[in-house]
């Protein structure tokens, strides 16, 4: 591992200034992904600016009736929060289905959004990878891609975003609060992560030096009736093959609002808007759940070895929607 300077910032603006002026500086929060990538040689920062003690560890209720989650709230604390468990159960479940108890105690909300793909080629510095080393090529397209993308990939990158938490948050219309060299701004979580296109090295729309300070959840009627379900190669402590976050607002049996997002299928947490459109304005029947899944998955473009994800996602969407509809 390359030697690095370590600096503990006094406040978010100082942290931003410290990182912005050095291209090879990185923010450090829980470190569960960054330290690992440094050990692998994927990341080699010359400066770490520690932002884990900047006072972003609180969860506050907003005037609008939602929640403002500080960037450094630990994944375990967010999952245990009663407001999250009662009003946004899909988010608590997504968090608890990710990583292990030990990792959730270290990992932060902001770090979870910014974690990098677990694509084998990205993590192996002896292999080409357009995300790690732009222009070097993508061996995954012809190689090991059984757990990579079926939506939105490009000829340059077929990686998936590994987060469970982000899948729930994207279904909940979360907003990301940022501090940057030119001041604070907010941006919707939908669109925060980028499709790879011809610049897969850029995971998100963040500019160098921009710091996530909080994630805001709006009040959402559908959120109380929500579930997260995850298919993986073992029962616990594994990344998703496919996951589904689903939320429904029902009014006398009719779907007034539907939220469906998929994990493990794209370079971004994938909001299944085509499925949502099919669900609104009618009863939640098994037939209509199938039609919604079909509407989304008709647009999948699986690779040689990951076509299994299409029927897997279809069944997971249908099962999760039917189970959500049965919740009180």
């Amino acid at each position, binding site marked *: 591992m390359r030697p690095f300077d370590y600096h503990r910032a006094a406040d978010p603006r100082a942290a931003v200034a410290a990182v912005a002026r050095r291209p090879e500086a990185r923010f450090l929060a829980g470190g569960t992904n960054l330290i690992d990538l440094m050990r692998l040689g994927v990341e080699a920062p010359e400066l*770490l600016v520690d932002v884990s003690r900047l006072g972003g560890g609180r969860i506050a209720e907003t005037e609008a009736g939602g929640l403002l989650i500080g960037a450094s709230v630990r994944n*375990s604390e967010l999952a*245990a929060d009663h407001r999250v468990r009662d009003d946004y159960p899909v988010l608590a479940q997504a968090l608890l289905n990710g990583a292990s108890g030990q*990792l959730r105690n270290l990992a932060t909300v902001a770090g979870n959004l910014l974690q990098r793909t677990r694509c084998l080629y990205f993590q192996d510095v002896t292999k080409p990878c357009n995300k790690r080393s732009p222009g070097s090529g993508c061996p995954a397209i012809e190689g090991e891609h059984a757990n990579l993308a079926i939506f939105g990939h490009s000829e340059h990158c077929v990686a998936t975003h590994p987060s469970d938490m982000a899948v729930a948050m994207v279904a909940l219309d979360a907003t990301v609060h940022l501090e940057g060299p030119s001041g604070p701004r907010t941006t919707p979580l939908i669109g925060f992560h980028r499709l790879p296109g011809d610049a897969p090295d850029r995971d998100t729309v963040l500019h160098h030096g921009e710091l996530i300070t909080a994630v805001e959840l709006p009040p959402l009627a559908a959120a109380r009736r929500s579930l997260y379900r995850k298919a993986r190669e073992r029962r616990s402590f594994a990344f998703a093959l496919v996951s589904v976050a689903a939320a429904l607002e029902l009014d006398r049996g009719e779907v007034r609002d539907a939220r469906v997002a998929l994990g493990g299928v794209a370079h971004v947490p994938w909001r299944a808007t085509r499925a949502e459109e099919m669900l609104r304005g009618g009863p939640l029947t098994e037939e209509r759940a199938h039609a919604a899944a079909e509407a989304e998955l008709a647009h999948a473009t699986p690779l040689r070895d990951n076509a299994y994800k299409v029927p897997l996602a279809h069944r997971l969407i249908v099962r999760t929607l039917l189970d959500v509809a049965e919740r009180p």
Partner: protein
Amino acid sequence: MSAPPPVHAEVTLTVNGLRHSLVLDTRTSLLDLLRERLDLTGSKKGCDHGQCGACTILIDGRRANACLALAVAHDGARIETVEGLAGEDGELHALQSAFIEHDAFQCGYCTPGQLCSAVAMLEEIQRGWPSAVTGEDPVAPTRAEIRERMSGNLCRCGAYVNIVEAIADVAEMP
């Protein structure tokens, strides 16, 4: 291009009740600090990537992977390791006794991490923290809960059945 020189920083930690101030290379993980500088070799280096749990320690009372925690980032923390579980008179922690009683290990390499993880995991249940298998009812230490919550600790000898029984014994499950 020659490699840049190591950077050093002073770190103060309380480990199993003893205060230590050390000057460290900023790259030092808590795991390497414990094992290489303080001769506390109970915490084990399995994968060094946060995937096996053999290095599990308690940081300010919460279980964490020591391999992924930079020592400089935890300046001032209170650390507990497997060496701190037994009483000062040498009396074993209830979980240590239960692991022996239930033959909850074979080679023993993962055991320190299993023990530290289990200590904190039972406290998390007492605090009411949910897991992925927790239903609508209040959290109870069922065997399903123990298996789910201990999934961050791998045992390549496959002693899981007895590990669950040892923890269930301490949690006073029938």
